[in-house]
């Protein structure tokens, strides 16, 4: 186990391969027959069976935030239920921590649900006859945790989701957002390895939804979990997802990072889906930043600095310490002034009020920064180290998605590769 964790990033937490769910009589006979490839409508007409999930495969690595997105009827909610076998798959395999759970007995399944996974539901799924703390503690009770311990743990998680003081209220007395907090607390109380969330915020109004999304991200900072998150809301998927799987008619059409999905939609359906999505919300500073051509170091004199800037035909340069820590931006015109004043320290020629950004900031947040300066925006990490610079031009260029330039471009690329 310990060794497995050390192997790091690529460790697969959850894997699904060739998963099918067909509702109806003799559904299993369809798989492997010539009907398998037929359309949903044809299968319904010929057999009366409804194809909900068709040959779905994906992998989720440990600690990943994996979003399954699709419109209603796309099979996304069925998929997440299949993962726990709340619905029995018609065919295919589900691996959790490398173990195939498709053949698990009831007892093994109960064990898996008690210890490895937990789930949050769109309609909250709270027990109406139990108060908040008993709802949260229920899963622990089922698991056999001693009373004092489970209440302590429940209190702790209730605090995490910001519901302290509501322990003794019944679900019917809470608002939707608060009820879902209870649902999340219940899931977190179990300290699961994998957290499954089925449209947890869809039933909430937009303001609360955004607040809950932010809070979820906050909580996940503290407790790292593997997450499978189902949603029909593209903005939500783009905001939360490390990777997004887009489903239609029971099939996965495309899997990719938010940026990939928007910049290169897998097919016309996805393109239509994402056309209104703003690249500004997904493209990050780190993906468009460039390495500065030259750097000025704090020990350099004004004349040397001027020479460097002139040689590179620039009108500015960043000033850094030996450890590449950003001190500021030195514009050519201030440098010239400094030399005229016979100044010594480059620090006296810095541009005041220099905006900076972090690598994970999205373009949307860079726009206001770009308007305050005529120079590129430096990208620095949490320690103040200079990672790169972003030209205002690059910000605008990033807004042009590949889909806008049409399919010819991708075809052209392929042609080039062939040649």
């Amino acid at each position, binding site marked *: 186990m310990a060794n497995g964790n050390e192997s790091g990033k690529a460790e697969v937490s959850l894997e699904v391969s060739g998963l099918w769910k067909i509702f109806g009589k003799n559904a299993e006979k369809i798989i492997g027959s010539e009907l398998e490839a037929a359309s949903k409508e044809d299968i319904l007409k010929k057999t009366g069976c409804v194809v909900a999930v068709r040959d779905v495969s994906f992998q989720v690595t440990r600690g990943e935030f994996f979003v399954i997105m699709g419109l209603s009827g796309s099979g996304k909610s069925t998929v997440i239920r299949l993962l*726990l076998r*709340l619905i029995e798959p018609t065919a295919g395999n589900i691996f959790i921590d490398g173990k195939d759970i498709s053949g698990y007995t*009831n007892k093994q399944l*109960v*064990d*898996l*649900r*008690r*210890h490895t*996974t*937990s*789930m949050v*539901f769109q*309609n*909250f*799924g*709270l*027990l*109406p*006859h139990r108060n908040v703390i008993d709802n949260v503690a*229920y*899963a622990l*009770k*089922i*698991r056999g945790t001693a009373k004092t311990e489970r209440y302590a743990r429940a209190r702790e998680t209730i605090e995490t989701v910001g519901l302290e003081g509501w322990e003794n209220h*019944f*679900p*019917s007395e809470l608002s939707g957002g608060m009820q879902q907090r209870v*649902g999340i607390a*219940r899931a977190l109380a*179990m300290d699961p390895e994998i957290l*499954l969330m089925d449209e947890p915020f869809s039933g909430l109004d937009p303001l609360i939804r955004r607040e809950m999304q932010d809070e979820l991200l906050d909580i996940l900072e503290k407790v790292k979990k593997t997450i499978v998150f189902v949603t029909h809301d593209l903005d939500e998927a783009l905001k939360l997802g490390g990777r997004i799987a887009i489903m239609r008619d029971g099939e996965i059409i495309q899997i990719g990072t938010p940026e990939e999905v928007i910049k290169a939609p897998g097919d016309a359906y996805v393109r239509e889906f994402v056309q209104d999505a703003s690249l500004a919300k997904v493209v990050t500073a780190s993906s468009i930043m460039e390495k500065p051509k030259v750097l000025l170091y704090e020990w350099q004199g004004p004349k040397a600095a001027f020479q460097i800037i002139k040689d590179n035909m620039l009108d500015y340069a960043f000033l850094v310490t030996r450890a590449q820590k950003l001190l500021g931006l030195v514009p050519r015109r201030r440098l010239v002034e400094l030399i005229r004043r016979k100044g010594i320290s480059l620090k006296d020629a810095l541009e005041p009020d220099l905006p900076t950004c972090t690598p994970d900031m999205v373009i949307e947040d860079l726009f206001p920064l770009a308007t305050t300066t005529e120079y590129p925006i430096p990208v620095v990490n949490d320690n103040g180290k200079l990672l790169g610079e972003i030209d205002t031009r690059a910000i605008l260029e990033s807004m042009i998605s590949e889909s806008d330039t049409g399919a010819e471009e991708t075809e052209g690329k392929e042609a080039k590769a062939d040649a």
Partner: protein
Amino acid sequence: MLEFPGFLQIPLAEWIDAIMSWVLTNWAVFFDAVGDGILLVLLYIEKFLLWLPWAAVVLLVGLVAWRAMRSWLAGLLMAGFLVLIGSFGYWDFAMMTLAIIIAAVLISFVIGIPTGIIMARSDRVESIIKPVLDAMQTMPSFVYLIPALMLFGLGKVPAVFATVIYAAPPVIRLTDVGIRQVPQSVIEAATAVGSNSRQILFEIQLPLAIPSIMVGINQTTMMALAMVVIASMIGARGLGLEVLLAINRIDVGRGFEAGLSIVLLAIIIDRITNALATRQQKYAASTA
């Protein structure tokens, strides 16, 4: 030609008779044991009720009614009704009737809840039992007296037996309905955290079905009360027997007194159990 053809006639009556005589010869020991069991329970309840001083019973009913209905006026009224029954000279008869009702309801409860649970868990079982329950309730109640009489002889035991057959369906039905009404989303969530089927039954389904089960118990009690009067025809002593005697003697005054006592007893039992049931429901409604 106008007569119904003889060859189409089914001798169902003969078959039933044959089955009954077969049961009587082969299962006599079993039914004797069941009868003794019922009698034992019944006698204890009856003895206890008759042993209690009347004032204590009146006080107890008053208190329970007050607590259940949250109104001291209701408590006073219910206690007053009971005093009225006693003032007609029917105290002991009323207690005997009450004993049969309590015994019948207890047995209905013990049989009904598990049956309801089994029905709720299987559509097939439900589709088999439901028509049986319908038949049990629509069959004229007098008909039950005959097999009860044959199996247990005259007296209180067949009265309890016939009463149970007549009164058990509501509690079975409403247990079934109560469990089936539990939202699928709640069951799914409980399953997802790893509840096994036993935990789902006892932690989720039964607690959420309690309001419905309480309504079932209320109905069962009322039906038991109705049946007790009829059961007096096979020798159950109590208020029913008084009515029966009054009919035989065309004694209007006595019949009215006994009949009114039954009505008062019915009101007391109904109001109290109904109040308990609706109090359960109030909380359930707020959660729906």
